[in-house]
């Protein structure tokens, strides 16, 4: 049960394949060479550093450090969510963090306790790997959902005010925008879910099969993980919108435009 290691030279050769998109970019003058270079070097260096760090973390396998690392990952995810939604940290970081933490932690522990029946539910291999997987996958949907929610209220301000003037409570007035944001957040996921296995072999399955698991074991993990990701996605999108709404609307129910960057 060992995967073939990749040696230094082949790793460099593999990484050098990046020259192909760069050559095309140069040839067609697409203008993404600098960004491609920066992004790919960041990708390489970040992953190498995380690799070193995780080797150490897995070796140590201390429950407190594991949970602290997961919390740190959740914090970084919330920062990334707000930055990519063009919103301000000061008002929205805390509610977003709470939403991601509640949804991710409850599902990860449910997974570790009920489904895997682990002896140590804080085991780095499960807590960090599975937690990271769930978090990373629900992050994109959260960004789409939250930014679409706030942008559409801002864009359709007149409709929103009209709802309030009709006698809608704040919750009733945000509901149509909430539905829209929620739908745009989960739609791509639902579409992707239907093609799993045939169009795409998910990364986790690939990893497990390379790691020596039988395809059936990998598939069973995949089914439960995808479901877990879907649950965390829906719960966190709902919670993020509800939690941030408390501070992004004033007492009159009007959207506080100060939440937007610029």
């Amino acid at each position, binding site marked *: 049960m060992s995967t073939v290691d990749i040696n230094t030279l082949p790793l460099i050769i593999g990484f050098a394949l990046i020259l192909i998109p760069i050559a095309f970019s140069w040839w067609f003058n697409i203008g993404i060479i600098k960004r491609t270079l920066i992004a790919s070097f960041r990708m390489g260096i970040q992953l190498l550093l995380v690799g070193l760090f995780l080797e150490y973390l897995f070796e140590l396998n201390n429950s407190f450090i594991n949970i602290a690392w997961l919390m740190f990952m959740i914090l970084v995810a919330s920062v990334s969510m707000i930055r990519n939604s063009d919103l301000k940290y000061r008002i929205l970081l805390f509610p977003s963090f709470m939403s991601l933490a509640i949804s991710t932690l409850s599902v990860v522990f449910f997974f570790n306790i009920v489904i895997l029946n682990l002896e140590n539910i804080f085991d780095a291999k499960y807590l960090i790997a599975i937690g990271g997987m769930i978090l990373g996958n629900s992050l994109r949907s959260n960004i789409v959902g939250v930014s679409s929610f706030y942008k559409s209220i801002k864009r*359709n301000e*007149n*409709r929103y*005010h*009209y*709802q*309030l*003037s*009709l*006698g*809608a*409570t704040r919750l*009733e007035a945000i509901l149509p925008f909430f539905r829209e944001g929620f739908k745009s957040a989960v739609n791509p996921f639902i579409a992707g879910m239907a093609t799993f296995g045939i169009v795409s072999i998910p990364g986790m399955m690939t990893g497990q099969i390379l790691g020596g698991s039988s395809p059936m074991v990998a598939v069973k993990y995949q089914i439960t993980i995808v479901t877990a990701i879907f649950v965390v996605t829906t719960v966190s999108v709902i919670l993020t919108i509800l939690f941030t709404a408390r501070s992004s609307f*004033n*007492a*009159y*129910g*009007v959207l506080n435009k100060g939440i937007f960057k610029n």
Partner: protein
Amino acid sequence: MPLLELNNVSLSFKDQSLFENINLSINKGDKLVISGPSGTGKTSLLKLILGFIPGFEGQISFQNETITHHNIWKVRRSIGYISQDSDIGEGKVGQLIEDIFSLKVNIKLKPDPGKIKELFHFFRLEESTLAKDFEELSGGEKKRVAIIISILLKRDFFFLDEITSGLDDEVLKTVIGYFMESDHTAIIISHDKEWMKKQGVKEFKLN
């Protein structure tokens, strides 16, 4: 006792004053036309009373109570607001109306279909409009749908922001007649001289 009272209300955007020290007193049954060139804050004045614009100076009272974030919800429920921007919703017109009467405070007001059709006839809208997409209606049709909704909501105090633009002469007279020849209270923003021809209309100029 005035229904609505504004005391020294001022509003500025980014250090630029829009209007200063407005004093207004509106009694039940009053019809007040707010006139003035564009950009003088007529629409903002209405939005401000409805609590949609934060950060103004002065005091506004409704039925002798200062408007705060506690009672603004009640104030909104008492006013039929028809905005200048007729982008008020989407979907089928019939569904749009139905959704409005599914809001908690409006459930009891749910109109019977006969009443809706009657109002559609009165304001010269085809019954088939109910099955059309709201966003595909003309500007004038959207305005009339909004007017009908505010009437169905049984409000008796109206904020009418340029509701006659885009209406042909005959419909325009019907609309103006409806609001002026009743005991409703109304604040009207309009460039249309037709409103001013009615008896007992007051005018307030913003410069």
